[in-house]
């Protein structure tokens, strides 16, 4: 099974982060949520590996609220 990459892996982290924020500029909450949902689905299809995606879901759930507050 392919392991989810959780070490730094982006080739241009600051540019990506800025682009992500820019995409949300001027959106209300609902529009922002909708944009994120579309983005998740596009990225999921690109990854295309159910095992990696479930690891990503677990990682996202675990990181909720920072250290010490998540389910473990």
């Amino acid at each position, binding site marked *: 099974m392919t392991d989810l990459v959780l070490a730094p892996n982006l080739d241009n982290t600051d540019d990506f982060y800025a682009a992500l924020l820019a995409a949300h500029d001027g959106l209300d909450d609902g529009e922002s949520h*909708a944009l994120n*949902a579309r983005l*998740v*689905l*596009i990225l999921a*299809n690109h990854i295309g590996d159910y095992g990696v995606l479930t690891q990503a879901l677990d990682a996202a759930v675990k990181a909720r609220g920072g250290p010490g507050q998540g389910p473990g």
Partner: protein
Amino acid sequence: MVAVRYQTAFRLYPYEKSADQEADRPVRHPVVIVGGGPVGMALALDLGKRGIACLVLDDHDGVGMGSRAICFAKRTLEICDRLGCGDPMVDKGVVWNTGRVYRDVREVYSFDLLPEGGHRRPAFINLQQPYFEQFLVAEIRRLQAAGAPIEIRGQNSVTGVGQQADHVVLDVDTPDGSYRVEADYLVACDGANSPIRTMMGLGFEGRVFEDNFLIADIRMMADFPVERRFWFDPPFNRGETALLHKQPDDVWRLDFQLGWNIDRKVELATERICDRVSAMIGAGVDFELVWTSIYTFRCCTMETYRHGRVLFAGDSAHQVSPFGARGANGGIQDADNLGWKLAAVLKGEAPDALLDSYHTERKQAALENIKNSARSADFLTPRNPAHALFRDAVLDLVEHFDFARPMVNSGRLSVPCIYDGSPLNGSDALGGGPARSRPGAPCSDAPVRDGFLLDRLTGRFAVLAINAAVPESLSIEGKPLDVIPLSAEDDATGALAHRYLGEAPCAVYLIRPDQHIVGRWPAFDPARIEAAFFQSIGKV
């Protein structure tokens, strides 16, 4: 008094007084089936063909009104072929291949079912349920005339059920008063609100979906193409979904999602429905309302489908959402699974424990059906804002990118369960054999010379050999098996080899009476066939 719960479309078995009603002591029947719907009638037909006497008790005298289950899948048609009534169904039914999905007024994509070639039957047909039931009963009548021990008693309503060590006792109400009858085995095919289940105090657990759907069956001569159309958020049903499906007799099924908080009486008013229909099909199109109904749905199952000598089949055992056509189709597969097992036990050929495997296999199938139909329902009826968020995201994306098409879930094709892990499965010793034909799987059809493979599987255990030597005839404990010796060259299209050989040069399969595969080997070995046979009838 027998209460009338619904109108009948066809009066097929009017009440007649039976000698049982005058008997000094209750008459014992090998099998009593309660409920004369598609599942009960299919089971009666199967048992009757096997020479097992069975009595069907139905509290009405015919087939209920309304198209209800309109999609009958290939596996159902194959089972009906074995039972002898597939042809009239397919002749009458509508075959469609094109589906179109709309959002608002825009077509977001269309698809062709492109069913796999080399099957006698289409992926499914659209047919009103009363016709389906009528064809089953017509075949029962034909068999009865030839001496098959099937009896149907209309307006016989079961009011009490009691289980003894070696039989079941039923109290039955009729227009001439009540009487008592006994059964070696009772099969409850009495629907989602099963009175038998209630009388026995058994649970039915699951999820209710908070939504209502309006069905309007209309007759119109409009020249619409024969295709399935599905709308998300159309102008004529804002914020909800709608479906258009063709049935025989120029009848179309229109299905409108209504939401949870509605006034049923208001929505069922004829004028209101006609307005909805006109908004959907166009103001100038003439139509006539044939049948209307509002339904809600739930996904539920009993814990176990066997309780001593009482077995539950069809909606009485499990209920699914209508999306994906897994209700009636799943129920027919219950009957298919149970018929040969009951017959083998009643003939003394198999131990009573074989009936436990009915629960094991069909509960596995029901959970699969519930999972799939619940997922469709979740897509159509999002339960919270996050669910709606992703559903809408999928619909936004599908208008731009093909990748999102498989995520749109307006109902998946009903496919039969593969009984992986069933205690009846024998060994899978065919190296390189295709996964679709592993033990537990239903046999895939394939062209064979001038006909099709499944037509050769007549309801007995069968040994299928491809490119492998087998004896001309074969029997185990004095019971003959069907022997089907084939060569890969019997099918020039290559489908037979693709579906049964895979990478293997030759193969021998043992196949159950319900056309599910027991085991497979690279060559004929009588000892291994015999061991697998005993495994599959619970004799281990």
